[in-house]
């Protein structure tokens, strides 16, 4: 029998009641009295010089309150970048200004040039069409290598180059790595593209700005994964509003996948426009705007080399990656291809020498930033693809070559050659589990059965590791982060015993309201419905860093544990007083404080009441009330890991790939709510399979987004996916956070693309298409068919 509540229980998500019955309250559901509407005039060309913006006609149109251009923001800052990467030459990255509205130049299709605010959305849209923008179109740079060529048009003239940075990691290892390659028995090389993705959260972005003329208070309601970060960035760097005069609220948010971490210009715009006009101002993205302006993900072009001994021992890895930054630096963009990518290149293996080179490049495309996995999928994909290719070249079974190189259970903590220390793991165990749940032994029989139907069946296996629980603040500070990455919680106990937990994390699909409540309820021994989780409002939550990087339970949950521990410690003091016993003898179990070894006890609720009605209370020793705050700063990342297997059928006549089965054996450490964990894995797998087979943002050579709608951008649908077999029983709990948890939000999206591609290559190889050693994602029918023809 599974537990029915507390840590480890597969409790149904409490938030689903409101989400499934249409009772969620999203940003676009917020309508303030007197609210006006903003529509942006966006660039239709990828690169151009703005000669003139004529707003006269638009300004005269019915309902128009004002047409804004960059001139209205002359005294405001640009949207800042939150991470400074230093190049191999010791120089800081090139960092352009990202103005709220374009200044002088437009740099991608969708770049905001002007904005109309009117009484109704329709009036604003009509007037936006009437704004006349005279643009001198300039040649656009879309391809990263072309952008770095001599004489290429410059995205930012003042930077003098389209190279943002050229980063080497670990630079000191470079010579040793080169030497290992020179001496290696075998070198496997693979060039690949990690395809650019459009995040496509179900809820498009939305922002409502409000200003109270009497008090000078600003409020921004926004679709954000981290309202405190938005408040800090926008207040301090863009609009010069101190935190105490700025409240940021991120209510229910319909999915983010990273794209709602970043501070976007529209947020600053509505906040400032509300002040200028003395009216609340709302902007809601259309789906087309979401495609054009939400920060995209991935977009790496990589060459990876693996040096091996002849019996398949990994000796060294060398990579060169071009990473697309787009036209401006989005909030965390520089960190994704560097610290979230290079540090994972050891994977689950003992490779002693690794060198990673990354060139980040500006192009005339929408900015690229974190997307579910953020850097770690890119690392995993290239590593697990090159291992597969090497295994084939050396004639070694792909599972065996991985096992041979695994970091073994007795080697933890394990210092990798790429800076991080894995605290714990057991990669053989997850591989054994995978072999069992994927029924690898039965593959050959299934392959024969597929062959009878004229289809080529293939099996792809891979491992992954990720660094989650982002992140130790002092460490990331050294690496260039311009923020701390702790998390916070305030636990407020009410007089009659119910609790409100105010977390700095933010839930936008992860189910925090359910699993966080399970943690607190379990610690005190009370039912979950006595615990309310509050998040998303800077006015009532402590300064927190938000939700991304599978950090919420590992970091935010740890802060909640710490705050709850403080609550329990104080409550024990009160209980000791009430029971006239020594504090050391007080035990808390099932919501009752008792004196050890006696039958004397006092209920949780009575202790809480005493704290707020302190008639019989040790006032000379402790304060009344029962409310505690904790900030938790992790001492290391967490390292979820696992092994995935995918089986596909390829139709040799059309190139169409069907995913027949997918199995995932994950080590997430301890699990608070197994049902939520499974759901997270399912969603991640769907996204990873989507990346592998369907999704891909494509710009033409002029910078027009060809995949600007769902008619051309293929999202995975239920019938594209098999039933998933998922398992998380091989748990090696995290050693350095109080819950022993590692995080599960991104694993599926990180581990699955190489499994799918490995499976397709396997199918083609077994089917006699031995010249096909790689196909770039997405593996559309047309691409697979074309690869087979050569």
């Amino acid at each position, binding site marked *: 029998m599974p537990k029915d509540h507390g840590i480890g229980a597969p409790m149904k998500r409490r938030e689903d009641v409101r989400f499934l019955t249409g009772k969620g309250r999203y940003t676009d559901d917020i309508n303030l009295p007197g609210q006006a509407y903003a529509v942006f005039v966006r660039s239709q060309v990828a690169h151009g010089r703005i000669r003139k913006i004529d707003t006269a006609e638009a300004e005269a149109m019915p309902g128009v309150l004002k047409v804004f251009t960059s001139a209205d923001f002359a005294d405001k800052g640009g949207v800042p970048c939150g991470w400074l990467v230093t190049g191999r030459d010791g120089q800081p990255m090139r960092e352009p200004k990202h103005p709220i509205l374009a200044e002088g130049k437009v740099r991608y299709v969708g770049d905001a040039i002007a904005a109309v605010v009117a009484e109704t959305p329709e009036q604003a849209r009509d007037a936006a069409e009437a704004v006349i923008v005279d643009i001198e179109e300039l040649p656009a740079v879309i391809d990263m290598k072309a952008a770095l060529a001599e004489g290429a048009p410059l995205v930012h003239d003042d930077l003098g180059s389209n190279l943002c940075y050229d980063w080497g990691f670990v630079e000191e290892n470079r010579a040793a790595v080169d030497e290992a390659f020179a001496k290696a028995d075998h070198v496997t090389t693979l060039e690949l593209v990690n395809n650019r993705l459009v995040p496509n959260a179900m809820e498009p972005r939305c922002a409502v700005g409000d200003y109270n003329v009497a008090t000078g208070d600003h409020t921004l309601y926004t679709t954000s994964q981290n309202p405190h970060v938005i408040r800090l960035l926008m207040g301090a760097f863009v609009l010069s509003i101190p935190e105490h005069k700025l409240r940021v609220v991120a209510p229910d948010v319909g999915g983010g996948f990273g794209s709602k971490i970043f501070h976007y210009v529209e947020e600053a715009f509505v906040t400032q426009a509300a002040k200028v006009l003395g009216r609340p101002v709302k902007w809601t993205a259309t789906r087309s705007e979401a495609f054009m302006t939400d920060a995209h993900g991935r977009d790496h072009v990589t060459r990876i080399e693996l040096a091996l001994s002849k019996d398949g021992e990994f000796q060294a890895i060398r990579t060169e990656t071009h990473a697309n930054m787009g036209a401006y630096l989005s909030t965390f963009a520089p960190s994704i291809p560097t610290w979230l990518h290079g540090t994972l290149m050891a994977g689950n293996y003992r490779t002693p020498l690794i060198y990673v080179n990354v060139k980040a490049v500006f192009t005339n495309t929408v900015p690229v930033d974190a997307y579910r996995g953020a850097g770690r999928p890119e690392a995993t994909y290239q590593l697990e693809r090159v291992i597969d290719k090497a295994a084939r070249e050396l004639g070694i079974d792909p599972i065996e070559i991985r096992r041979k190189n695994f970091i073994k259970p007795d080697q933890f903590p394990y210092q990798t050659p790429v800076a991080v220390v894995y605290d714990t793991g057991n990669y053989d165990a997850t591989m054994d589990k995978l072999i069992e749940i994927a029924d690898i032994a039965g593959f050959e029989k299934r392959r024969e059965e597929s062959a009878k139907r004229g289809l080529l069946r293939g099996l792809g296996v891979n491992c992954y590791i990720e660094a989650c629980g982002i992140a130790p603040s002092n460490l990331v500070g050294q690496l260039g982060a311009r923020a701390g990455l702790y998390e916070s919680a305030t636990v407020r106990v009410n007089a009659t015993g119910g609790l409100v937990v105010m977390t700095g994390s933010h839930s936008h699909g992860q189910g925090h309201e359910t699993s966080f409540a399970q943690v607190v309820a379990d610690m005190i021994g009370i039912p979950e419905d006595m615990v309310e989780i509050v998040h998303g409002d800077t006015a009532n939550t402590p300064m927190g860093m938000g939700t991304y990087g599978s950090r919420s339970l590992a970091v935010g949950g740890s802060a909640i544990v710490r705050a709850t521990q403080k609550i329990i410690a104080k409550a024990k003091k009160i209980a000791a007083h009430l029971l006239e016993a020594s504090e050391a003898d007080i035990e808390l179990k099932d919501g009752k404080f008792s004196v050890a070894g006696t039958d004397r006890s006092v209920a949780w609720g009575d202790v809480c009441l005493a704290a707020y009605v302190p008639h019989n209370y040790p006032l000379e020793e402790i304060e009344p009330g029962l409310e505690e705050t904790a900030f938790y700063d992790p001492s290391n990342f967490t390292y979820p890991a696992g092994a995935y297997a995918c089986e596909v059928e390829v139709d040799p006549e*059309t190139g169409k790939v069907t995913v027949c089965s997918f199995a995932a054996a994950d080590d997430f450490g301890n699990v608070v709510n197994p049902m939520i964990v499974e759901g997270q894995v399912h969603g991640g797998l769907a996204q990873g399979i989507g990346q592998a087979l369907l999704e891909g943002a494509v710009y033409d050579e002029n910078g027009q987004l060809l995949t600007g709608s769902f008619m051309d951008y293929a999202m995975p649908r239920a019938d594209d996916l098999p039933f998933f077999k998922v398992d998380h029983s091989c748990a090696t709990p995290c050693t350095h956070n109080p819950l022993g948890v590692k995080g599960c939000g991104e694993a599926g999206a990180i581990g699955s693309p190489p499994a799918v591609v490995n499976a397709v290559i396997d199918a083609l190889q077994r089917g006699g298409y031995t010249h096909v050693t790689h196909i770039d994602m997405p593996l*559309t029918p047309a691409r697979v068919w074309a690869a087979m023809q050569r």
Partner: protein
Amino acid sequence: MYNFDFVKPTTLQDAIAALSRDEAMPLAGGQTLIPSMKQRLAAPSVLVSLTGIPELKGVCRADDGAVCIGAATTHAEIARETAAIYPAIAALAGGIGDPAVRNRGTIGGSLANNDPSACWPAGVLGSGATIVTNTRQIAADDFFQGMFTTALEPGEIITEIRFPVPEAAAYAKFEQPASRFALTGAFVAKFADGVRVAITGASEGGVFRWREAEEALGASFSPEAVDGLSVSADGMIGDLHGTPEYRANLVRVMTRRAVARAQ
């Protein structure tokens, strides 16, 4: 969307009168027209709904055995109503879009739009159907005149489609992964006097008849009859979902599969 007037007549006559107004357009299921209006790519001043006109709706059987489908009949209704009498077009209709699209979108709207990737043009041309309008009857061979272009005059509306029922027929559609329209689709129909093969999704000229295959299948209506044939990639659509060569390949593969299905 821009502002527009909306009328919903209950007779064909009233509809035609309403369509004579400036910049008036018929609205059937709205599955194509409404999205383009939302994007402000279409801006009719009057929308004349055809969905309230009983004579434009439903499926019946003519004296000569032809299956007659009212232009404003939805894909979903066609899928239901023709399942027993012309299963190949029932299957075609049932494979369009998703349930929401099938329960709004109509055969008349699809034909008037003549999207080069739409399914109905293949079913209609492959069946050698007749398109009946408020003024005349147009043979399928004369109706489709290239991508998004038809023989319809301004203000002319499709009222009915008459399908002769073949001895055997089938539609094989290879879906474009994103839109799930036909990346290439083949409709084959075997009549007493010959075989018709219509291909959608592949050609820059829109739906077309593959005469070579018709001939080969006329001699022997079997999947193998298609094997030796090939289609030139010249004039095939090339886009991010497939090269002209890929589509040329699909023409053969889908035709073969349609024939196999029709056996």
